[in-house]
């Protein structure tokens, strides 16, 4: 298991060092600094073996987190733990920076003592951690016995992510369907690969221990329901802004993963998503689709080399969704060669600028309606070089945000049952919104 955990700043100075196992000595701290942080070469692997000691590292801005071991540990678990560690720290004190880490080092040690025991990850749910790691040491003394045992049963319990006795005056929940659409397109407009990775993020402000059931237009469920003739549920529930009606086409989900609150065995057998939600914001599920994706934009590049010192670039973007919808924060990034000396840009819409430091022309459009088209043309002057290597022509990338789910996913219902308290599904105020963002949205040129 994990033998030790170190946090370094960008200079390689150690900020946090916690050793869990006897086989990890102090020299391990230096070994990582010398061989990885101070290494001349770019990092070639997130796992490094130095003198029979393995180092796993992740980087968050300037900060290096390294887990060390001498055993054959579960590598996936170590990385998952490191990410979790980052999440926990971020939820306690915000951004992971040298400043924040130094300011909270006592807290971090306390957390490290709690969430990792002898190198075995323990409960790492922020919700429950915050009930007893508070940085107000004296509090422990004032807790009643009931409170204490409530904490421990939550930390170790089946529903470690939610505590009992939560009360809200108004029961409310928010569902965000956040999708990032990824595309790799050939210069000829052929889709080389495209997929949507989506997340359903839920913010729940519900009293008690509510039992929730979530439904979407997943093909398999709809097909099942269609056979059984049970479609009434979907029709009745109104979720506000989503505008989903049953009978609309269903989507094929390639794969999905769920927050640990979801009963996986139930999903496996009935494909129903039921759970007791954590309080506050969390990610309910992630999913991936590859079929029938709505690609919100199409980029048509035209790059022409005029002699050795000039490039002519023309890029057309076409929006491909309902004209009534508006895309926002559109940004097209057209890479330019390293030896660019000057750029002239003309664009019909938005603003375009050549950014020498980023080696790219950045074209920004605030808003664009569906089924529209816009164009930019640029002349790039090049310095003559004797560099024989051809310019690698990085792909043209794009960023945007659209108010629909490119995968076509629709939320059909989210039902809340709380038998002990006197509120019903109808009393809960529910909100849904869909946001489609660009993931890696690239067109080769």
């Amino acid at each position, binding site marked *: 298991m994990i033998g030790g955990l170190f946090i370094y700043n960008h200079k390689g100075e150690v900020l946090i060092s916690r050793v869990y196992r006897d086989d990890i000595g102090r020299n391990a701290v230096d070994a990582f600094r010398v061989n990885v942080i101070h290494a001349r070469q770019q990092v070639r692997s997130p796992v490094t073996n130095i003198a029979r000691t393995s180092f796993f590292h992740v980087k968050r801005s300037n900060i290096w987190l390294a887990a060390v071991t001498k055993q054959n*540990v579960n590598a996936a678990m170590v990385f998952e733990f490191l990410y979790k560690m980052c999440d926990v720290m971020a939820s306690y004190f915000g951004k992971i920076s040298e400043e924040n880490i130094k300011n909270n080092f006592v807290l971090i040690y306390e957390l490290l003592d709690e969430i990792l025991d002898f190198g075995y990850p323990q409960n790492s749910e922020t919700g429950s951690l915050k009930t007893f790691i508070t940085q107000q040491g004296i509090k422990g003394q004032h807790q009643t016995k009931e409170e204490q045992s409530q904490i421990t049963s939550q930390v170790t319990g089946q529903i470690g992510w939610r505590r009992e006795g939560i009360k809200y005056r108004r029961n409310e929940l928010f569902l965000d369907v956040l999708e990032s659409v990824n595309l790799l397109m050939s210069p000829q407009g052929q889709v080389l690969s495209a997929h949507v990775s989506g997340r359903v993020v839920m913010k729940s402000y519900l009293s008690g221990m509510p039992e929730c059931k979530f439904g979407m237009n997943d093909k398999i469920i709809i097909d099942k329901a269609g056979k059984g003739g049970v479609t009434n549920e979907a029709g009745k529930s109104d979720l506000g802004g989503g505008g989903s009606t049953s009978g609309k086409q269903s989507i094929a989900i390639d794969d999905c993963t*769920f927050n640990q609150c979801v009963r996986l065995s139930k999903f496996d057998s009935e494909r129903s998503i039921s759970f007791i939600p954590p309080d506050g914001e969390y990610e309910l599920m992630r999913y991936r689709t590859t079929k029938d994706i709505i690609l919100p934009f199409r980029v048509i590049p035209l790059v022409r080399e005029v002699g050795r010192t000039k490039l002519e670039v023309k890029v057309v973007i076409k929006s491909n969704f309902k004209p009534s919808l508006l895309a926002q924060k559109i940004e097209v990034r057209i890479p330019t060669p390293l030896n660019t000396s000057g750029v002239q840009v003309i664009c019909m819409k938005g603003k375009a600028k050549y950014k020498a430091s980023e080696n790219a022309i950045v074209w920004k459009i605030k808003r664009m309606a569906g089924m529209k088209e816009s164009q930019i043309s640029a002349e790039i002057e090049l310095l003559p070089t004797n560099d024989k290597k051809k310019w690698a022509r990085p792909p043209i990338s794009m960023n945007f945000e659209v108010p629909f789910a490119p995968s076509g996913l629709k939320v059909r219902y989210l039902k809340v049952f709380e038998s002990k308290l006197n509120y019903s599904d109808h009393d809960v105020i529910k909100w849904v919104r869909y946001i489609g963002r660009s993931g890696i949205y690239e067109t080769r040129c």
Partner: protein
Amino acid sequence: MKWRKKYFSACFYLFLSLVPLQENRQFGSKMTDSKYFTTTKKGEIFELKAELNSDKKEKKKEAVKKVIASMTVGKDVSALFPDVVNCMQTDNLELKKLVYLYLMNYAKSQPDMAIMAVNTFVKDCEDPNPLIRALAVRTMGCIRVDKITEYLCEPLRKCLKDEDPYVRKTAAVCVAKLHDINAQLVEDQGFLDTLKDLISDSNPMVVANAVAALSEIAESHPNSNLLDLNPQSINKLLTALNECTEWGQIFILDCLANYTPRDDRESQSICERVTPRLSHANSAVVLSAVKVLMKFMEMLPKDLDYYGTLLKKLAPPLVTLLSAEPELQYVALRNINLIVQKRPEILKHEMKVFFVKYNDPIYVKLEKLDIMIRLASQANIAQVLAELKEYATEVDVDFVRKAVRAIGRCAIKVEQSAERCVSTLLDLIQTKVNYVVQEAIVVIKDIFRKYPNKYESVIATLCENLDSLDEPEARAAMIWIVGEYAERIDNADELLESFLEGFHDESTQVQLQLLTAIVKLFLKKPTETQELVQQVLSLATQDSDNPDLRDRGYIYWRLLSTDPVAAKEVVLAEKPLISEETDLIEPTLLEELICHIGTLASVYHKPPSAFVEGSRGVMHKRLPARTGSGEGTECPDVGNAAGGSAPEAAPSIIPSQGDLLGDLLNLDLPAVLCNILIMSKLNSSLLSPQLGGDIGGSPAMGAGFGAAPTVMPASLNAPVGGGLGDLFDLGGGVGMPMGAYIPPKTVWLPAMKAKGLEISGTFARRAGVIQMELVLTNKAMSVMTDFAIQFNRNSFGLAPAGPLQVLTPLGPNQTIEVSLPLSTVGPVMKMDPLNNLQVAVKNNIDVFYFSCQYPISMLFVEDGKMERQVFLATWKDIPNDNESQFQIQDCHLNSEAASNKLQGSNIFTIAKRTVEGQDMLYMSIKLSNGIWVLAELKVQAGNPNYTISLKCRAPEVSQCVFQCYEAVLKN
């Protein structure tokens, strides 16, 4: 739509901005902890001591924080031990935790003082607050001092049975800690049994921690039956699996993976209960579940419906892992690499997800590339090639190299794509980017190996880049190409000679390759390269410290001096097939790694014993054997390594460990050795004692011979059968008979190389018409039809004058003789040797290629008799540089008979002169392309050796003409 305002972050930044203000104050709140990192005053320890002993609680706490900060940055603050321990008795939980942290770090260096802390621990273990009880037992386990561990036993025993699950789960881990310090003590105290009982605990987290602790302890006692896994306990684990935290699920799944189900039914039921985990958000849970499934799947019969369902279920979660953070993607990709080797069917349709993204970190890119090649097939090759070509223009050198190499591997793997791969590689060579060229040459060499006589036209392009090669691997590859195709490269000797200059500075692989290549060259062009071969042999045997090189040198030397024909057989023998897949992990290792999916072993692709010290992980894990549903309940662990999961690789393929090139280069040697072994049986004098004496290094030599068959067991049949059976026709030119005399037919294309079609034949000139006389034999089981023939461009423009007349289908074991008239008006390209002819024969099965050499006398036309005056003038006119002299030995004809015999082959005697008992015959020859050759033959009565001088404007033909003379006169 209304949204709750996010004021949290705004608040947070406000908070931060306060920090600098507070920094100067002596007692800050927790937000100013960073100041502890900056104290570097002299006398600091002294000051801290005072502060630690202060009466004020706040001051004490500040001091402890400073101590911890110093400890973190690596300062030695062990001198403060008693003072810090004094702070332990406190109500403040935060302070207590800090002191414990200090204790864990320094207790070992101050064991006597550490005893002072024991009382507090024991007391804390009785505390009413479960958090404090757990904290005490957790910390005590981390203090590795023998004296303390004795005191630990009683509190631990209590905590293991504590009413609070939080304490129990902490105590469970503490048993593992204690075991690490003193294993005997744990056994004596009976903690292991208590731990086993915890597996049945009502709280899932306690179960999970108990499983983790037991698994760890069991690992250091490989033979103990600690984790007594039986269907009942497995059932308990599977129940807990649904309820515990993500980490607990990992512990349980990893533990489950060590279990071997009794039969396929149990295996299936476990699989069914594990599959829901594939939808977990935690990648480690998913990978551990995949491990269990991959392992237990071994036991399921393949015809079972469930088996297919399971295979289908595995693909989506594996693909989803690729949308995780890059570090996890890396771990996932390394594992997918294993899974694809073990069960390629799972991901065969998922090629696209492994396409490289521009912004992927380099380690992800390289791994994706590896998997792309493994998944490449005829169905997706076009897409893959397009991608690879794209990658070859990227920036990262390693990545580009790998992409170029991948193109070559595609060519070898998917035959239909070979042509496109070669042309892509040629395009890349044109870029002249040094490392791209080198990498391309390395892979083109492999392509030559795989598809002989198909793409050699690119050799010229390769030779252009000879000077830019500076890496050993590329140099070795180029040398191999030059040696292998020496007969087609005019200046092969010069090229190789240029490499020879810095022989001792070259790396071993280049030296070995150079040695072999020059020997090949010598065997192909013996006359011009004698010096060169001498030189390389002496360099290799006398001036080298490398035993491999010396040995190889001696073998060649001995071979060449004993029996050049045998040498030819050995060195130029048919090469065994090269494997389609490269870098395959050896099957037993692969099985072991499959059992370690998700772990470091699977990331390194090495067994745990390779990187873990001590007893842990030394035990090798194996996949379970497949059992029938009824039988095989007793010992599922026996004899499975070679069993159900044997590799599907064909036996004729070379086991390739590591890098493809290494194999290919070394092939030459083992092939040689194999042949020598066979030959030594035929001709025992070759290995007679004198050999050992000569070499002086006989033990090494002997070892080399002995080792050969074990090195290359699979290749034995290929080179031996082919090498001995079908002696190279390259040598045919030496003894080619001529003229009216019809030379015996030689086998040009052996049946084993042409799917059962055997072709033998010869050339003749009949009534001014050149004819190729072929004998086609069908040695296959099926009927052959649709024969056609085509020639490659050749030196004299030979081309079939009509189609190949095989009108009736050729049945099995049937033979047909065909005579094919040839014209000399086809396209011309200079060949090496000049009279080499590359032929393609097609039938309904395939296209086959072979090359043969024709006697140049075939091309001597009937009107080749020159006028005397013209002869004289021409003789004078041709510069003396163009004259070459040869000896014809052991010819017992007189000048008259010789002249007559030569006339039959259109070599005309124009004049005869006798000077001092020596007959001088002046002769002329005209080739079909109009080249005149003039000859002067000296025949001395009683001397069987003739001297012949040849003059020609195209001196290249002289050698061939001389061979004709020799052949005609001797037959």
